[in-house]
């Protein structure tokens, strides 16, 4: 007896295929991690309960989830811009760092700027710093065709060490505990918080940006060109589009948004520059953008989901479950969702054959 399993292309892809596939993928990821938790001797039900409560259990917890989600949202939008043009920006981590670094510099050392302009200056400078870091990474691609996956990734390490130089060196806060971190940004360089929570006004900026990007891709000539280049470079050349110029522009925007994520982090809940300030947010942003298929509106939802995972993980310690479990969940969700995409356009057929029919076929 033999079993033949084949993938067959669906004749018609229905809307529910597109919705069910990611939902089932996420469920499978949770089940998979549950099995691992069980094997490690924890109770998965308790774990998920604490996770959920930690993220959504009460108004305060939910507000903290939004605090986590805000920088992710900026960075996720940034990565999505690059991915829309099939440019693999793995460098959001480093661009985040540069945004945070530039904002800290402005916030701490440029107090001569008129007060109402300090925050806008931090955002602009942070955008440019992150954007420049992104553009540097794709210059070799624009000139010699070097794969940007590698260059963007490598520059992350450079950026992290750059931050270390400042927080261990010239910007180190000598007044407190001698930890590798800068001083807390003065109030003039901090974002206004709302409703007595740690959520700050940057969340509105992020939402506006998400809508703006959605419109940019749908309604503008530049957004259209980026989409065409992302899907078919030959057609883009044929249409007379300047691919190099667009690549630099896209990386400026992509890196810039990741940079702004860094800005809102240090001027928001983060409050200062610390070693390893990005803490994996750039990579999480990549997962968010990928899962959302670069749709800015969906990125809003997925950012909240991932913010919830991070926020919820703090609560896990109360149940004596290692908080790293959430990193595993993130990975499992991405893994399952990528695999699940196969089943949007395809369906499995399983055929069982017995020996006789096999022999017949061989003849």
């Amino acid at each position, binding site marked *: 007896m033999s079993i033949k399993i084949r993938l067959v292309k669906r004749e018609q892809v229905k809307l529910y295929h597109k919705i069910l596939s990611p939902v089932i993928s996420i469920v499978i990821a949770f089940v998979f991690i549950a099995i691992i938790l069980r094997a490690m001797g924890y109770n998965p039900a308790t774990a998920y309960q604490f996770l959920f409560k930690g993220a959504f259990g009460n108004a305060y917890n939910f507000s903290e989830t939004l605090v986590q989600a805000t920088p992710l949202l900026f960075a996720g939008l940034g990565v999505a811009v690059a991915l829309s043009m099939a440019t693999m920006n793995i460098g959001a981590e480093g661009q985040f760092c540069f945004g945070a670094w530039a904002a800290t510099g402005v916030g701490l050392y440029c107090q001569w700027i008129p007060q109402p302009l300090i925050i806008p200056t931090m955002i602009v400078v942070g955008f440019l710093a992150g954007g420049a870091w992104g553009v540097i990474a794709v210059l070799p691609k624009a000139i010699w065709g070097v794969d940007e996956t590698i260059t963007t990734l490598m520059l992350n390490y450079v950026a992290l060490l750059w931050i270390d130089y400042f927080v261990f060196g010239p910007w180190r806060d000598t007044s407190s505990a001698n930890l590798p971190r800068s001083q807390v940004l003065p109030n003039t360089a901090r974002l206004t918080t709302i409703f007595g929570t740690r959520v700050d006004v940057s969340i509105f900026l992020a939402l506006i940006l998400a809508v703006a990007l959605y419109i940019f891709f749908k309604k*503008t*000539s530049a957004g*259209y060109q980026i989409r*065409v280049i992302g899907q*078919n470079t*030959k057609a883009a050349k*044929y249409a*007379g589009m300047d691919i190099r110029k667009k690549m630099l522009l896209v990386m400026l925007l992509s890196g810039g948004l990741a940079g702004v994520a860094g800005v809102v982090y240090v001027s928001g809940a983060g409050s200062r520059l610390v070693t390893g300030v990005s803490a994996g947010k750039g990579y999480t942003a990549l997962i968010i953008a990928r899962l959302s298929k670069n749709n800015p509106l969906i990125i809003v939802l997925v950012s909240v989901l991932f913010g919830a995972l991070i926020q919820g993980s703090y609560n896990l310690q109360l149940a004596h479950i290692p908080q790293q479990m959430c990193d595993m969940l993130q990975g499992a969700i991405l893994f399952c969702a990528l695999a699940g995409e196969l089943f949007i356009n395809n369906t499995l057929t399983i055929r069982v054959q017995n020996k006789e029919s096999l022999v017949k076929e061989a003849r």
Partner: protein
Amino acid sequence: MTPSLEMRHITKRFPGVTANDDVSLTLYPGEIHALLGENGAGKSTLMNILNGIYSPDEGEIIYNGELIKINNPAKAVSYGIGMVHQHFKLIETMTVAENIYLAVGKRCDYVLNRRKMERQILEYSRSYNLEVRPDAKIYELSVGEQQRVEIVKQLFRNANLLVLDEPTAVLTPQETDKLFENLRAMAKEGKTILFITHKLFEVMEYSDRITVLRQGKSVNTLLTKDTTQDELVKMMVGRKVEKMPGNRPVFADKKPVLVLKNIQALNDKGLPALKNFDMTLYSGEILGLAGVAGNGQKELTDVIAGLRKTVGGEMLLEGEDVTNVSASRIRRSGIAYVPEDRMGTGLVGTMNMPDNVILRRFDSDAYCSKGILKDKEIRRATEEMVEHFDIKNAGTGKPVALMSGGNLQKLLLAREVSGQPKVIIAAYPVHGVDIGATEEIHKVLLNERNRGAAILLVSEDLEELQEMSDRVGVISEGRMVDVIGWKDFTYEGIGFLMTGGKNERQTGGETA
């Protein structure tokens, strides 16, 4: 003598098309056999059946007197059927020896004896006079050398029947000579050689026997020495040789629109593809361009569309020098281009119809103001095209990849002729398109001609060229061999020129 291979009454159907219809092919040991046919005649399907990639719906394969079934490529190898594909199956970063070993290696050989391997390969290649350097990396080799590696690989697998798919497509004439010298030596040893081609000249020069396929059917098998190129053309094209019927209205205001002088350009590999190419395109005419694929057509249309830089010569549009200006300027100055690769280049399959309608005019005032796309205008233009050109679709919002070939081509053509271009470059516009759509596409092109557009129609289909063209030019090895007025059009004449022959009658020429 018993045949080494018989393929009897092979039929293979694909949805909507019968690729092979009762095809028979008989090969004898020691012969070099040519399988000749136009694109789409069913040559590749037949070879894929022989190689175990497809299984035939009907018919049988008899190999050395034994009825066999080839379910997969590994089976073909075990029977000693070796295939040299047009695109080589080699791993570029590995050495010649490693590649050959990969193809023949036994599973239990965990330790590679590099020196022994290389010595064996040298012995083998010397005995067939196929020089290869076993320790060279594939990417260091020329295309001709890579092909030799493929052949040595097949010999290592003990191939007795060697099938070569368009082996000369990538070779220089000298390399071609050498290749067939080697193949001849193998045939003398009793191996059977089958090569697939559509180049008549090679068939006449190098083969012993020829089987001609046309539209999925085997037309005839004959001895090379008993036939002529003319006869083969007739069999390939399936037409009696006729003078072009009827008269057609001459466009009143005829003037040269696009002039190419001594254009030189390289192909993607950096080899010369256009060598001093000359052409004049007049308003209100269709200039057909005949030629065997790969003689510079692609490079020519790319050059005109501004997608490929020239290395010499000049291009004038209404007297203005437009040599090597950007693709977007070419497009804006009124040159429309229907590329050969309609899905890969001409359209974006994953995008919907409106997005494809604006592909080449995303920055025009009609569709865009101050960087914002004018949705309403775009939608209206799309609906107009759908209606005017009768484009069948599953909804304009769906990805165009879901549409049929004919409708895709109508959409592409509709977009390109919108805005009344001065010049239309149409590369194989009806290739793979059903008969109904073909007629409609032809009608559109004729209407454009009558409007006054200068049209270059590139095609391999002589019948199409005869029906459509005011003049027919023939491209061969990157040169315009000759241009013939429609009154002088004969299949024999064109076929002769296509193989690179010079026209002894100087009729037609550049006189329109």
